[in-house]
């Protein structure tokens, strides 16, 4: 019998305790913010969309090697000996034309593994998080600064330069032995 009334008492008591708590929360200010009008302010180490500052990029391919999902594609063409490609911000001389630098943000997992190995710190994460698209291929961002014709022109120069070098080597190999010594210095 005692246990019977004990059940009733404990049921009612705990229910009233619970109700007291929820009623107290009626007057606690709510924590939700109205998103589109009130934007949450994000900390400065926020990891959202990547940004590549192309004039610092020397095309060393470190970031695409570090990426676990390999969503960074870089294509570089060697510059001809005479060309000057300018310096990066910390003074390193650039040697490669970056003819193609795309990051596929549909595949990127925002793990920041690419930011650390970059020697010139040209790839870093911004706090932009509203970049959704309708088509998936729209999420492939191309960061290379050369226009398509320039890229093609760079590739042609390289191909022409290689072809010349090939021809010289062929010519040098076909002539008799003494010629070899003379060719060496000129080729650099």
């Amino acid at each position, binding site marked *: 019998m005692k246990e019977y009334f004990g059940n009733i008492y404990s049921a009612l008591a705990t*229910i009233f305790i*619970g*109700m007291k*708590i*929820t*009623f107290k*929360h*009626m007057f606690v200010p*709510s924590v*939700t913010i109205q998103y589109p009008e009130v934007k949450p302010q994000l900390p400065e180490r926020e990891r959202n969309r990547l940004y590549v500052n192309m004039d610092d990029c020397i095309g060393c391919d470190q970031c695409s090697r570090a990426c676990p999902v390999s969503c960074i594609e870089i294509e570089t063409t060697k510059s001809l000996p005479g060309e000057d490609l300018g310096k990066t911000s910390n003074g390193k001389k650039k040697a490669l034309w970056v003819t193609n630098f795309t990051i596929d943000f549909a595949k990127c997992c925002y793990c920041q593994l690419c930011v650390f190995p970059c020697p010139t710190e040209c790839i870093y994460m911004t706090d932009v998080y509203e970049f959704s698209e309708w088509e998936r291929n729209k999420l492939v961002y191309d960061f290379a600064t050369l226009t398509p014709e320039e890229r093609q022109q760079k590739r042609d120069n390289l191909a022409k330069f290689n072809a010349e070098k090939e021809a010289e080597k062929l010519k040098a190999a076909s002539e008799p032995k003494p010629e070899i010594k003379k060719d060496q210095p000129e080729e650099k």
Partner: protein
Amino acid sequence: MMYDFLVDLFGNSTAASIIAGTIQSILPLFAFILPFALFAVYLERKVSAHMQDRLGPMRTGWHGWKQTIADILKLIQKEDIVAKDNDKLLFNLAPIIVFAGSYAAFAAIPFTSIFIGTEVDLGIFYIIAVTGIVVAGILMAGWASNNKYSLLGSMRSVAQIISYEIPTILVALSLVMISGSMSLHTLSEQQTGYAWNWYIFGGPGTELSKFLLIPFMFTGFLIIYISTLAEVNRTPFDIPEAESELVSGYHTEYSGMKFAMFFLAEYANMFAVSAIVVALFLGGYQSPVGYLGDLFNAPWLIPIEQFTWFTIKGIFFVFVQMWLRWTLPRLRVDQLMAASWKYLIPIAFVNLIIIGLITLL
């Protein structure tokens, strides 16, 4: 009152009386239930939001007051899916019956002293009988949607409503025993005067029996409130649409306007049930502190005041139902049955007997 006015308006023939009767019974629906249901849905969203440190709807209108209208419009234009192998007739009939059951109960509820849907002498008896129809509607819904979950859900809710009607009847019986009449109208009339004349404080009069009654009337009030909660499927007894197991019980298959009917029926039922509790125990439309109408002797003011007092009390109890919903977890089916058969019914019987003895004094 309304009825005679309408009858001579339409020329006193039998046809007139039929038309007058129907108009009079339809009037409370459009005048009260629809706006109340809209308001109750909005109230539930806001109450649950603020209890959980959220804001609730804020987009539609200032603090989202147009949200329920938006819901109704959405539900209206939603496609009304009837699955191929559903039992068509029962599937369409079920929401109508469920809504009819809860709406019919409004006919006998005394909103003010002069206006009452239909003057029914067997007020309480009629209401309990009519809310019984809802059970048939739920069973039809469960069976017709031809899905395992709905069938389980509807069987459970039928068992629940039936086993919780008994304590409601017992407590209503004890009250009828004291007041002598079944009609809610006379019940409310007897609780005139200030708040301590209400039945929860032992009813009118000042003899010893009034004070003896107080503890038992209070337990009677608790029992009827808990069991009406179960009849309306509100937490902690909302097993039929227990999201976690049966994915929302008997109205899983419904969509569009039929779902709106179930939804509306639930909120109308909520008010009907709390109106009964208010009429029985808290002096129906009597005001606890006397009427302004008497002060400025403007008799036409009294019914309006009575109506406001009645709705305030009703809405307070609807708020308490919501308050319970967002505080308590849900009972399992067998615990729910145990609560009714092992706890509520025996205590209601004992209560009934003691009240009977006291009234004999």
